[in-house]
C-alpha cells in the first residue's frame, strides 16, 4: 500500500480468520529487526450464534493483550497508531472462514485454457468447484444445469489465444447467460464474472453477459499457447473477493474498515511466502497447509509456482470426507493398535459435528495423525496431477529426450528433486513433538534422496504472506527467525529391497570432527541428532539397486542440515513403500518406526492404548 511507510512500523498486529480458529500475532521491531512477540487464538465466529467474524478477532486480540501485557484494544476498536505502549501501528488480516472463496472456471479446451484458468483461480486462493469447457464431455443443457446448481462466489471465464477463434468463447458466454447464475451469498448482488480470454472476444462477452452479471475484463491468461499470464487474472480475483464476496460475509464489512490493507484469502497469502522462500534461496519447495476444512499444497519447481486446494480434505469439518476418499483401510494402516471399525467411524463423525475439539488421550492423537497422513497424501496426489507443464505445446526434443518419453503436461513435481518440504496447519504445527510432524510428512509425501523438512512453528505463514505485501523485510525476518522450524534432513534411498538387509551405509563427518559410521537396513528408519544450525558432511553408499540421487548403487557426498529433530535415514522403501499386509506385523513395524524417531511418550503407545481403550459409553 502506497500510504503505509514500512520504516515507520514498530508494531504490527496480524490475524488469520480460519474456518475453525482465528489466530492473532503481534510483531514488534526490536532493535534493527522484527520479531514475533506473542500469539493468541480464539474460535472463529462466522457461524451462529455470533455470525460476526470480528467477535473471534477481538477474542484472539484479547488473548494477545493478556500474553503481551499491553493494551491494544479500546473497547472494540484497535488502537492505531501505537502511542507509548498502547496500540499497534498496523493491523492486517487474511481469511478463509465461511467456506473461503468458491469459484467456477471456464475455458475452451479443458486441458489447455480450462487448466490455465483453474491454476489462476487456485493461485489466487480459491476453491475450484468445477471447470466447464467446450470439450468437457457434457451436453450444453447439462453444463447450464451445473452452473445454476453450483452458486459460486465468482466465475472466471477464459478461452482462446489472442487472435484465435471467438466462437467457442461466445458459446461459453451464451451458456453462462442462459444459466443466469446466482451468487452463493444471497441474491442481493450480481455475481462477479471475470473475463480473461481471447481479447478479440471481449465485445461479444460484454454483449452476452454485461447486463446479467458484474462483468470485469482483464488480460488474457493464455495469450499464446506457449505462455500463461496468470498474474492479472489473479489480481482481479483478489479485488473481486474483497469487493463482492467478503463484503457479504458476516462481519467482514466491519473487519475491512479496521485494516488499511485488503484482506487476502489465506491460501493466497501462504502462497506468497512460499514463493518468496523458493526465489530467495533458489531451491525447490513443497509447502502444505492442512486446515480444518481444506488442505492446500504449494510447490515451486523449475521456478514455476503452483497451488492446489483440496476443498474437502481437512482435519475437522472435512475429516469425514478423508475417510470417504481414502477408505477406512488406508487410515487404519497407520494406527499402531487394534481399534474397532464402528468405534473409529463414530469418532471421526463426532469430530466432524464438533470440529473444535482436540485429542485428549494419546490414542486419540495417534488416530488423528493417522487421518492426517491420508489427508496429506490425497491432497498431494491432487497437486501432482495439476502442477503440470503447459499442455498442447510442441516441445523441442534432443537425442537424450528420446530415452525419456516426456509428453507435454507432465507433472512438474519431482520428489527426487525436492530441496525443502514445509508443513503447516494445526495437526503439523501443533503436534506435541516435532518428530511427529516429521514422520507424518515422510509417510504422506515419501520424499526421495535428500530433502530438508520444516514446519511453520505456530502457523503464521498466512499473516506473514499478507505482511510481505506491505513490509517484505519484516515478513522475511519473522519467517526465518520465529516461524520456520527446521526439523532436519531426511535421506531416503529409492528402489526395492529386502526387509532387514542393509540398504544404505553412511559415513558422517559431524561438527567438531567426530566421525559416525553406520548402516541402515531396508525397512528401517534411523534418527541421528544434529542440532539446528549445524551441518554434517555425509557420504551415502546405497546398496545395488538403490539410488540416493547419483544413480543405482552409486555413492553420493552431500551436506546434511540439522534441525530440532535431527537427521533421518529413511530406508523404509520408496517406489515401492509398502506396509506389511499382516495386521500384527504391520502394528509391530509401525511401533518400531515410532520408537526409532521417539515420536510418542515413552509409554508404549500400543500396549497402553489397547489396555485403556474406552468404547463409547453406555452402549446397551
Amino acid at each position, binding site marked *: 500500500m502506497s500510504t503505509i511507510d514500512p520504516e515507520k512500523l514498530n508494531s504490527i498486529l496480524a490475524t488469520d480468520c480460519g474456518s475453525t480458529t482465528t489466530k492473532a500475532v503481534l510483531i514488534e521491531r526490536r532493535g534493527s529487526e522484527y520479531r514475533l512477540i506473542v500469539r493468541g487464538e480464539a474460535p472463529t465466529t462466522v457461524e451462529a450464534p455470533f455470525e460476526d467474524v470480528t467477535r473471534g478477532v477481538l477474542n484472539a486480540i484479547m488473548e494477545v493483550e493478556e500474553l503481551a501485557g499491553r493494551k491494544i484494544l479500546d473497547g472494540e476498536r484497535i488502537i492505531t497508531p501505537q502511542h507509548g505502549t498502547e496500540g499497534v501501528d498496523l493491523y492486517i488480516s487474511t481469511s478463509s472462514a465461511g467456506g473461503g472463496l468458491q469459484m467456477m472456471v471456464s475455458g475452451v479446451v479443458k486441458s489447455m485454457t480450462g487448466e490455465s484458468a483453474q491454476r489462476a483461480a487456485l493461485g489466487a486462493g480459491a476453491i475450484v468447484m468445477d471447470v466447464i469447457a467446450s470439450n468437457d464431455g457434457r451436453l450444453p443443457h447439462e453444463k447450464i444445469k451445473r452452473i445454476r446448481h453450483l452458486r459460486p462466489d465468482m466465475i472466471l471465464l477464459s478461452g482462446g489465444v489472442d487472435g484465435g477463434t471467438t466462437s467457442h468463447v*461466445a458459446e461459453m458466454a451464451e451458456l453462462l447467460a442462459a444459466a443466469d447464475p446466482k451468487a452463493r451469498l444471497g441474491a442481493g448482488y450480481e455475481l462477479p464474472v471475470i473475463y480473461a480470454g481471447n481479447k478479440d472476444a471481449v465485445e461479444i462477452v460484454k454483449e452476452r453477459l454485461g447486463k446479467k452479471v458484474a462483468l470485469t475484463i482483464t488480460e488474457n491468461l493464455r495469450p499464446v499457447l506457449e505462455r500463461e499470464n496468470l498474474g492479472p487474472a489473479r489480481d482481479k480475483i483478489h479485488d473481486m473477493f474483497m469487493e463482492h464476496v467478503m463484503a457479504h460475509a458476516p462481519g467482514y464489512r466491519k473487519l475491512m474498515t479496521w485494516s488499511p490493507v485488503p484482506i487476502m484469502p489465506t491460501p493466497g497469502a501462504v502462497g506468497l511466502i512460499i514463493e518468496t522462500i523458493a526465489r530467495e534461496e533458489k531451491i525447490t519447495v513443497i509447502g502444505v497447509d492442512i486446515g480444518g476444512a481444506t488442505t492446500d499444497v504449494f510447490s515451486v519447481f523449475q521456478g514455476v509456482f503452483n497451488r492446489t486446494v483440496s476443498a474437502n480434505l481437512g482435519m475437522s469439518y472435512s475429516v469425514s470426507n478423508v475417510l470417504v476418499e481414502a477408505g477406512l483401510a488406508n487410515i487404519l494402516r497407520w494406527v499402531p493398535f487394534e481399534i474397532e471399525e464402528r468405534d473409529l467411524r463414530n469418532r471421526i463423525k463426532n469430530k466432524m459435528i464438533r470440529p473444535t475439539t482436540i485429542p485428549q488421550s494419546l490414542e486419540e492423537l495417534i488416530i488423528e495423525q493417522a487421518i492426517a497422513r491420508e489427508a496429506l497424501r490425497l491432497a498431494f496426489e491432487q497437486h501432482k496431477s495439476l502442477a503440470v507443464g503447459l499442455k498442447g505445446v510442441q516441445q523441442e526434443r534432443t537425442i537424450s529426450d528420446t530415452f525419456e518419453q516426456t509428453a507435454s503436461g507432465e507433472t512438474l513435481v519431482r520428489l527426487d528433486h525436492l530441496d525443502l518440504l514445509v508443513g503447516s496447519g494445526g495437526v503439523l504445527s501443533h503436534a506435541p513433538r516435532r518428530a511427529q510432524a516429521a514422520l507424518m510428512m515422510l509417510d504422506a509425501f515419501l520424499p526421495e534422496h535428500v530433502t530438508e523438512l520444516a514446519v511453520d512453528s505456530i502457523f503464521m505463514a498466512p499473516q506473514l504472506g499478507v505482511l510481505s505485501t506491505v513490509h517484505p523485510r519484516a515478513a522475511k525476518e519473522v519467517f526465518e527467525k520465529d516461524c520456520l522450524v527446521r526439523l532436519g534432513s531426511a535421506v531416503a534411498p529409492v528402489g526395492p529391497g529386502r526387509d532387514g538387509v542393509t540398504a544404505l551405509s553412511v559415513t558422517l563427518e559431524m561438527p567438531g570432527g567426530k566421525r559416525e559410521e553406520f548402516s541402515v537396513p531396508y525397512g528401517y528408519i534411523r534418527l541421528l541428532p544434529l542440532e539446528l544450525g549445524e551441518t554434517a558432511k555425509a557420504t551415502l553408499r546405497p546398496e545395488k539397486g538403490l539410488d540416493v540421487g547419483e544413480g543405482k548403487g552409486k555413492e553420493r557426498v552431500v551436506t546434511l542440515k540439522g534441525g530440532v529433530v535431527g537427521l533421518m535415514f529413511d530406508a523404509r522403501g520408496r517406489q515401492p513403500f509398502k506396509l506389511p499386509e499382516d495386521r500384527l506385523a504391520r502394528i509391530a513395524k509401525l511401533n518400531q518406526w515410532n520408537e526409532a524417531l521417539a515420536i510418542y511418550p515413552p509409554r508404549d503407545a500400543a500396549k497402553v492404548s489397547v489396555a485403556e481403550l474406552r468404547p463409547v459409553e453406555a452402549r446397551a
Partner: protein
Amino acid sequence: MAHSYTPGLKVTAFTTLRRERKLPLPGDVLVKVGQRVAASDVVARTQLPGNVQAVNVANLLGVLPEDVEEFLTKPVGSAVDKGEVFAESKSFFGLFRSKCHAPVKGTIESVSKVTGQVLLREEPIPVEVDAYVDGTIVEVHPRSGVTVETRGAFIQGIFGVGGETAGELHVSVSGPQEPLEERSIDAACRGKVVVGGAYVTTAVLRKAIAQGVKAVVIGGFDDHDLRQLLGYDLGVAITGSEELGITLIVTEGFGSIPMATRTFDLLRSCEGRHVSVSGATQIRAGVQRPEIVAPDPEGAGAREAAHDSVEGGMKPGDTVRVIRQPYFGRIGKVTALPPELWPLETEAKVRVLEVDFGNGSRTLLPRANVEMIES
C-alpha cells in the same frame, strides 16, 4: 483471560422464532401480513425457467451462423413440440432438405449469430414454498417470500438427515437412556414424530419408514448405520435434501449416547403437540443445525423461558458435557478454570477446566472438549 467456550445447542421451552420462507426465484406471495398459517399451507409460488437445450443449427443445416435465423420455421419466442421441425434448409433447387427437430417441448429462446446455436427453453418447473411451522406471517418480502413467526418450544439437534416435515410428537421410550426398539414402532406411530432415547439402528428406522413415521429424534446413532441408511458414506456434513422417507435428528452425537435429560424432558412435555422438524445440517459456511419446533400459541411454557440462555463465558458451577473421548458424553459441573496451560497425556499444553462428574473426584479436561448445557 479471554473467553473460551463451545456454544451449546439451543434447548428452550418457550421462545419466539422466525423462519424466512423464500422462493429460489421471484414469484407470487400468496399470504398477507398478520395471516395465521398452518405448517403445510403454501405461502409462495413460482415457476423456475425450464432447462435449456442448445442445438447447433448452423452445423446441422450446413449454413453460416449469421444466416441461421433465416432458416427458422418459426420466429424466436415461438412454442415448439418435441420432434417438431423448427429449422430447415433447402438446396439443389429444393430437392434436398436438411431439418432440425426440437429435442424437447419448449420455446425458441434465442439464436446466436456467432456460433449458430439455437437455444430451446423447456417448460417451466412449478415450485411452491410452504409455511413450515404453524404461526403468523409477520413480513412479506415482495415477490420472494415471507417471514413466519411462531412461539413455542425449540430444540436443536447436533446432526440430522432428511428434509422438513411435521407431525404429532410421540415419545416412544420411558427414559433418555433407553434405545428405540422395533417393538416400539407400530401403526399408532404413523404420521408422527417419534422420540427415542440413547440409540437407534437402521433396522428400526426402516421399520419406522414402513410404518409411515415422519421423523425420529434420538440421542445417538452409529455412523455405520448412517451409511446403511443413506446408501453411501457421508463426506461433508451438508444434509437436508436426502429423500429417505423419514427425517432423523440426532441430539447428542455418533455412538450410543443417552439424550440429555433436559432435552428429553422438554420433548416429553410436548407429547401430542403438532411439531415441525428439519434434518438440514450444515457445519461449515453458515452453520445450520437440525431442529424441532413445537408451536405453543397459548404460551404455557413461557414461564420457563427465563433461564434459557447458555451463551457467554464459562464459570465454576456451570454444567458441561464432554464432547470428545475418553469421557465422551459424560456430564459434570465445572469446579475450576485454571488460567495456565496444562499438559495433556498427548503432551500438548492447552487451556483446561476442572470438572466434577458427580463422584467427588475431579478431572482436568481441555476447554475445547466440553460444551455448556443448562442444568
